[in-house]
């Protein structure tokens, strides 16, 4: 069994974000420069490694939907702004979910431009692991543009999935935009499909959004639930 999964299981919890990122990276998914800081002071130090501008997110096994309780700040430009943002988030979380235990802070480099896609995977009771890809961002539910396959898939099949998506046209260079790296997104689908197929303890995973641009496909948020 994977070491990260084993640890979380032994503590009877799902993966926290730094663990999910580490696991995703070990399966070949591309992540932006990031760092996990256990204390507020360390966060400022870690920011030097990640580089500004960056996004900062609270890490807590007690908080699943970070943005709902003000646990995410983006576009942080410097040390002072980072320290201020963390202090504010601490205050807010203490008010809204006083029992939540804060393990630290995730700092991630901001990725600009590109389209937002979603790559996810879950487990069907009868047919086993499946992988899903679709248009991401705030319009996911409005357009319902997703395609699903049994996992694992290989690159060719992942490219076919993208060809089936209506939003797949965005990748080819829509309205004069430069074509995006569709192969990189296809590789993310392949990696996600292998991640769920090879780890029976994973019930569900969500990479949302995956930022796709001419430069590649970068996972900006990772959630992995154990079952």
């Amino acid at each position: 069994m994977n070491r990260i999964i084993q640890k979380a299981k032994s503590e009877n919890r799902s993966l926290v974000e730094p663990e999910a990122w580490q696991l995703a990276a070990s399966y070949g998914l591309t992540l932006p420069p990031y760092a996990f800081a256990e204390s507020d002071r360390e966060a400022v130090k870690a920011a030097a490694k990640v580089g500004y501008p960056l996004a900062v997110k609270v890490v807590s096994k007690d908080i699943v939907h970070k943005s709902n309780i003000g646990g995410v700040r983006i576009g942080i430009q410097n040390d002072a702004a980072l320290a201020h943002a963390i202090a504010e988030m601490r205050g807010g979380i203490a008010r809204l979910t006083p029992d939540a235990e804060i393990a630290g802070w995730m700092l991630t480099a901001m990725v600009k431009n590109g389209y937002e896609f979603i790559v996810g995977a879950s487990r069907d009771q009868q047919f086993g692991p499946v992988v899903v890809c679709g248009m991401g961002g705030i319009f996911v539910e409005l357009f319902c543009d997703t395609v699903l396959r049994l996992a694992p898939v290989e690159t060719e099949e992942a490219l076919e999935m993208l060809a089936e998506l209506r939003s797949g046209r965005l990748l080819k260079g829509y309205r004069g935009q430069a074509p995006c790296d569709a192969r990189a997104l296809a590789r993310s689908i392949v990696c996600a499909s292998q991640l769920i197929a090879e780890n029976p303890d994973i019930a569900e995973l969500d990479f949302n959004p995956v930022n796709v641009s001419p430069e590649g496909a970068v996972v900006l948020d990772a959630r992995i639930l154990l079952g």
Partner: protein
Amino acid sequence: MSRNLSVLFQAQSIAVVGASGTPGKTGYTILKNIIDAGFPGPVYPINPKAGELLGRKAYHSLEEIGAPVDLAIFTIPAPALPGAMEEAGAAGVKGAVVITGGLSEVGNTELERRVLDTAAVHGIRVIGPNCQGITSPHYGICASWPLAVGRGPIAVISQSGTIGAAVAGWLIREGIGVSATVSLGNKSDVDECDLLEYFAQDAATKAIALNIEGVRSGQRFIDTCRRVAATKPIIVLKPGRSEKGKQAAASHTKSVAGDARVFSAVCVKAGLIQADSTEGFYDAVKAFALSCPIRGNEIRMMTSSGGSGILAVDSAEDMGLDVPPLTEAEKQRLKEALPSHCVLRNPLDLTGDTDAGRYVTAAQALDPGHTGVLLLIFGDPIPGAAEAALKIKAATGQDIVCCYIGGGDVEIAETHALQRLGFPVYPTPERAVAAINALYRYGRVIRQEGTA
């Protein structure tokens, strides 16, 4: 589980346990249809009153027959089944079809288990219970209803007795016929995978029509379908796409319908050709009965009806099939060969005054060796369409699918003639294109299998 099911579909003697002389009763209908289908072997009605039923000597019990019985059809009430199955075992029966309902589908799982266990002890394979029987026209067997005898290349495996009977009925009415029909019922012993394996090696079966509401084992289903689909097309119709449809499936046959999107992914993985309506299901089945999988995704069209041609193009576009333009050389040759009012593009509009001969002339001007399909749309009465299609096939070497529309009595006669020659005919351009799409999709399945 690979014990051969040929004892069922190639039975040489049949007993009807629960045969009746009263019209309207299932035991009467089954006995009558077995006899009326012209079953060549002995038929034994089993009825406590014995005597004679429909002109056949009846017996008190299976044991009383004193001769081998391959297949026993059970129409007796559910509580009598375990005893009757025990008797069948003692009499050396090899296969059973249990029409009787009132078992696991209404919660009588214990009773059903006793019947199945008894059958298993004696090595009897069981279709059903709670099913509409089987037919096997090549062996003169119709242990089902309605009476259906037309021999042909399609095996129909159906959860719904009605959908199965409908598809078989249409195939027979169109002169195509079936190799077998099987109503799955509770599929407590023989399930869809056993049947797929059997029909995969059945020489009379060219393609398999599968109507299911759920599967027993997901992984086994995928593995079996992949293996079978590599050699024979499987066309599948699975109801329960909507949330309420799923609930209806659950109460109909206790099937776990599952997520429709996952099942579609299963179809992609396993190489199944999935239909999304009963009509599309039948149309695809018919295409595979008469045609071969096609290699290319290009459709060239010839039509006498401009309007029908546009509808066909729209459908092709929706389905991602290509309607390539004519080459300059083709246009030049067509210009010389056809009247000036013909529209020289794809679809090639031969216009309303065309006769069958003009289709042949036009086809002879096309570049040969296309990998896609030629769609011939005959609008209005065009006599001689079948003969023309045969000449076009010879001239182009292309696979041909037809649409015959608005042709009155000529349409009926020509449709029949075309299909007898092996050209599938559809009454609308959309249905013809959807059938072409099914042929193309299966062509991709076997090409991928070949390169895998």
